[in-house]
């Protein structure tokens, strides 16, 4: 019965380490920085949609 509408997703790299650290996503029309934490409901839904082939996470831009 849950509906979370995700229209874009892109990894954001840590500007110090260069490693992917969060996903910048548009969720229900709001831009959010989502942690790579399975306990986070938005991250869980992003990964569910990725596994279902409904969403692709874009690679991170080069850190500034």
């Amino acid at each position, binding site marked *: 019965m*849950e*509906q979370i509408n995700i229209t874009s997703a892109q990894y954001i790299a*840590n*500007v110090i380490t260069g490693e992917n650290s969060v996903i*910048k996503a548009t969720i229900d029309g709001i831009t*959010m920085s989502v*942690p790579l934490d399975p*306990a*986070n409901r938005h991250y869980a839904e992003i990964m569910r949609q990725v596994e279902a082939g409904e969403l692709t996470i874009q690679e991170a831009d080069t850190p500034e």
Partner: protein
Amino acid sequence: MSEIQVGQINSTDGSTAITTGADGYVSFAKTQIGGRRNLIINGAMQVAQRGTSATGFTSTGFRTCDRFRTSLFSLGTWNEEQSTDAPDEFASSFKVTCTSPTGTLAAGDFGYIRYMFEGNELQGLAYGTSSAKAMTLSFWVKSNKTGSASVQLLQNDNSSKNISPSYTISSADTWEYKTISIPADTAGSIDNDNGPAVSLIWWLHSGTTFTGGSNQTTWATYDATDSNASNLGVGATANDYFQITGVQLEVGSVATPFEHRSFGEELQLCKRYFHRWGGDNTMGGHPMFNGGGNWATTVYHFPVEMRGGPSASITNNGMFYYENGGTRSSSPSSPSISENTKQYIRFDMNSLAASATQGYAGGLYFGSTDYVDLDAEL
């Protein structure tokens, strides 16, 4: 040794003073007995960090009173508020109003109010063992609708095993107090973790996918049609409304008086799941400036450890204030967040003015409309 066996003791005016349950739990009608009985956070609807009203929405979301979410699917347009209309003992209630109903109700359409528990909050219930405990749900409710309604508890850790008892709203536009017995579950254990464990749902209205079954009064295998077997139908017509407050879920077979907690205590409990950083015309952070580029960063440590890493949404950008050769200057930032943990976020300000790239220390200023929402709700 003598003993008496009694279910109720009355005061001299005939009113109930003490009620005893078959399982040994006791309720004093007008005495605030020991604290920490209520498993619900913000049951008196005191805390509304996101705002006190929201209008014109059509979808699911957390909008006003903390921890309570309105869930909607194709059920028209609604308003939500932290209302000051409440029973005498309370200052606030959670109110939803349908402003524009959906046309033809499809089978899968629904609307309900939901509260979700973490698994680690419910270990004391001893579910899945022979020591499993019964619970009692109590709440105040008010609606323009009368008749039978459904409330539901769903065990997320056990394939949505559920109980869906009914209650009755007898009089329109009148606050009524309801108590509902929740039997123990000796068969389904609840994971001891920070994930979603049990949903508590007040049904507003739904299509046939969620009606037509039976109100379950014992824990039963999930059947969607049992969910809202007694459909109150809030939202079938314009201006239908539904309000609740004084929500208490406690161990034992009798409802005790509502456990009032202070605003500060409830606020701290709520911040585990959501809080707002900024929006208060203050220096919210004190970053050190990176002289190597038009970039600065600060770390914000949360007032309480959150349930998990929060999703962070930025409303407006804030300003970066810095000293440059004795002159205070400012630069709008283009912020981003590059670390989210359950203890802190790192807030980066990008594309700062060239004059700011001098290696000076500066501060992050949040105006009244600049803030970051941190959401670790279930």
